[in-house]
């Protein structure tokens, strides 16, 4: 009897430690989005909640193209796409410096997704500062594919 009680207590303590540790790890290392921003692939995106309009305004002021990224937490390909493609140093640099980035969570921003005819993640929609759609990139493409696109759109808008 005593052995069982002892083992139970040890297991209970272990379980609590594990729960505490994993909870904090997730909060500090793996936050994907809060009310204002999404943090995907090491890049900070505006969240839809902070207003798409506002992003357009900033884009017009700074004369930068907009990249809207549609993702979902359950999307296996998104995780890889974020790490490999968006996280690619060259792509990341251009996106962070020359783009207004907005992330749309397909579980929350369904209306926006419907409006832009996006039905699955990952999906990129590129727009000029006025909101005209310049290009759509559906699916998890690799950095070699995306780099010329982000470069060209940036140059086109600047011109």
């Amino acid at each position, binding site marked *: 009897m005593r052995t069982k009680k002892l083992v139970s207590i040890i297991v209970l303590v272990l379980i609590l430690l*594990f729960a505490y540790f994993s*909870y904090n790890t997730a909060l500090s290392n793996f*936050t994907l989005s809060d009310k204002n921003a999404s943090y995907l692939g090491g890049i900070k995106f505006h969240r839809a909640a902070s207003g798409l309009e506002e992003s357009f305004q900033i884009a017009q002021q700074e004369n930068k193209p907009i990249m809207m990224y549609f993702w979902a937490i359950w999307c296996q390909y998104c*995780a890889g796409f974020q*790490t490999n493609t968006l996280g690619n140093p060259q792509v990341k640099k251009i996106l962070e410096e020359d783009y207004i980035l907005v992330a749309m969570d397909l579980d929350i921003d369904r209306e926006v997704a419907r409006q832009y005819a996006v039905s699955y993640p990952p999906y990129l929609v590129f727009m000029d500062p006025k909101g005209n759609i310049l290009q759509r990139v559906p699916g998890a493409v690799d950095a070699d594919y995306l780099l010329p696109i982000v470069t060209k759109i940036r140059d086109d808008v600047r011109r």
Partner: protein
Amino acid sequence: MIPLGDILLYASLAVSVIALAGLLLKDLKNIELLNKFVTPAIILVAGILTFSYLLLTYYFVNGNFEYDYVWQYSSSDLPLVYKLSGTWAGQPGTYLLWVWVVYLSAAWLAWTTKHSTALARRTQIITLLTGIYLIILTLIQTPFKLIIERPEVVEMIAKGTLQPDFVPEVGNGLNALLVNFWMIVHPPFMFIGYATMTIPFAAAIVYLLTKEDGWEELGRQWTRFTWLLLGMGIAVGGVWAYLVLGWGGFWAWDPVETASFIPWLTLTGFMHAAALHRKNKTTFSTAAPILAIVSFILVLYAAIVVRSGLFNSVHAFGETSTGTLLIIFIVIVSLVSLVLGMRRYFEEPDKIIEDSGFWNKTNIFYVTLLLFVILAFISLWGISFPAFIQLTQGLKVGVASDTKNFFNVWSYPFTIVLLLALGFCLNYNEREKEEQKKILFIVIGLTIVTMFLRTETFYVLDHSSPFWAREPPFYKLIGNISVISIFPSLIYATWSTIQRLITYLRIESIKPKIKGIGIAIVHFGVVFILLGAILSSNFTQTIDRINIPLATKGELVPVGHGYGIKIIDFSTRNLAETKNVPAGAVSISEIYGSPENYVSNNVKISGKVTDVANVQSPPPVVYTTYMKINDGTYTDGLWAATQSDEPLNIQEGLELTMEGFLMTGFKSNSTGSPCTAVTPCDLIVFSSPEQITGGATAAGKYNVQSVRLEVYQDNRKIGSGVAEYLQSDGGSGTFPLVDSSITGTDVYVIFQGLGGGTVPLTLKIIPAVNFAWIGVVLFALGIILIMAVKTKSKDG
């Protein structure tokens, strides 16, 4: 007017209440007043619910789209079998299935026990209470809701846009991913499993409440049946995930896959506790019933996870309004069982006779139970706390940089300990204990040593994955363990199971022999499943982004790493096998498939405009309108162009039929053209404005593209078959080619739908995954043998 289906549900509710009253009167006041109605009443409810399920099925087959649920999940162009499976594709239908099976179980219980004992009567009371709760749930989310009750339809009727007796002509149709054989069997397995769990749960509650003996015997066969069905349901879900690409492989720790796995783990724990409890009633007298109750609570929890929008999962097809009711149910059951469990625990007399010391059978079994609970908790916590954080703080968090990593890291060490316990327990013998302990310690030593073996890629976490770098140190610490460390315990478990099998084969008496063989087979199943899961997920070789031009049909195209693919044939079809292009028109996939037949000739195409670009040429001004036409037979559609003096008013979404001539490799110098020197259009149709007419016949809802191909390794054919891509209004699905060989290695090719004249493929070589499926079959076979013996002993 209330629909017939709902009337049936109300009737079943009323009759259930009468039956419950009869049982309660008898039990509490010993009043016989309603007692003789109880059994017929319960059987009547089972009958009414059977009828209402058949009614729903009839509505699906017949296409009665005046019912919202039928409209949502069916469509007239679906094959019959998918119309049948549509009944359990959404939440209202699965609730009805659930409650129906609960009452079939209750009817069986009534028929076999006649409520002759207090235990049987009280078990039935709890079962009926559960059943009544579920009927109310079904009524709230009724599958018989009329479409004219939909808020948007009500609004349109009020505005006069729709007639008050509006009935849609076509259904919304099934999600493309559900149009698959395994999806026909997966939900019923799961929900029948959930439903049959009610009886062991009810018996356990009664036992905790009244200490009535015999509860375990009453629920035993139900438990085994539940375990079998839940296990098969999970396995079939795994097969489906493996065959329908989308979330990577056969087990991706999606919240819903995991949610149904959790009660299965605790149920496995319960079966182990019950095995000892059966022999000595004082052993696990609290742990066993608590595990049965916990399994039931987790089943309810799984139902919430499956059908609520909170857990972000590919399964979350619809949001629920009954989630709150299920949560209330869980809270009630948890509180009741907690109070009862505590009472029993402190009442428990401390005079249990056990072998002394730590190394006795009860203690080792207890460790096993705890391991099942730990593994269940890891999964439960992993899917729950992100939802909790989202709910309370509005933050979305991942459990690790790659979800799989969290579950793999934490489960791996405990899986090894579980295998060690399996090896030790299955062959436990009091007299040879010292000898067995020695063997165990050697295996533990070997396990620890092999954890440090350095290999190229064989770690708990994949070092070459981009996620590896972002994991926290502790995850890396466990992730750094070599997976070779699974083998000592796996071999030990196998050896022990073989020993056990031999012992049982020697037994003369037939019943224990069969049962023993069954037990051994189930444990072989564990070994096979783990072997298959670990080998396949660690040794899969993937070649991505293969693009083979359709023009190379019949030629062997090298794709790297010594592999080559030959495309034999390409074809398209409609799932309902109805023509989806107007007379004289050619399907776009057909044009891409053999452009040589059409180039420079007039072709007629028909479809929806998905993209438009108007381009103005330098003076003399001419306007070229580019339209991308999609007829649903081909992912990307086909560009068509026409020229005129003024811009044409062509909008996206327009249905067009047009005739023109087909050209290859077209490029334009004008800016704004989709066909530039950099990205020329492989194929384009030119027509004059007069050759364009509006309106095409509606394309079929489910179009399938099939590519037949052969896979070669070093010029030797290693696999062949058909890979398919299905496209529908509600999304797309891929059905890969899976060719297994006798060595257990699968050649797995995913086809993502024809695009730009090339066939995009992903080739995977997956070793040993078949072991996992063999393990599943062994599970089923073993438990059926064990169940068979019980039935015999009861009769005899």
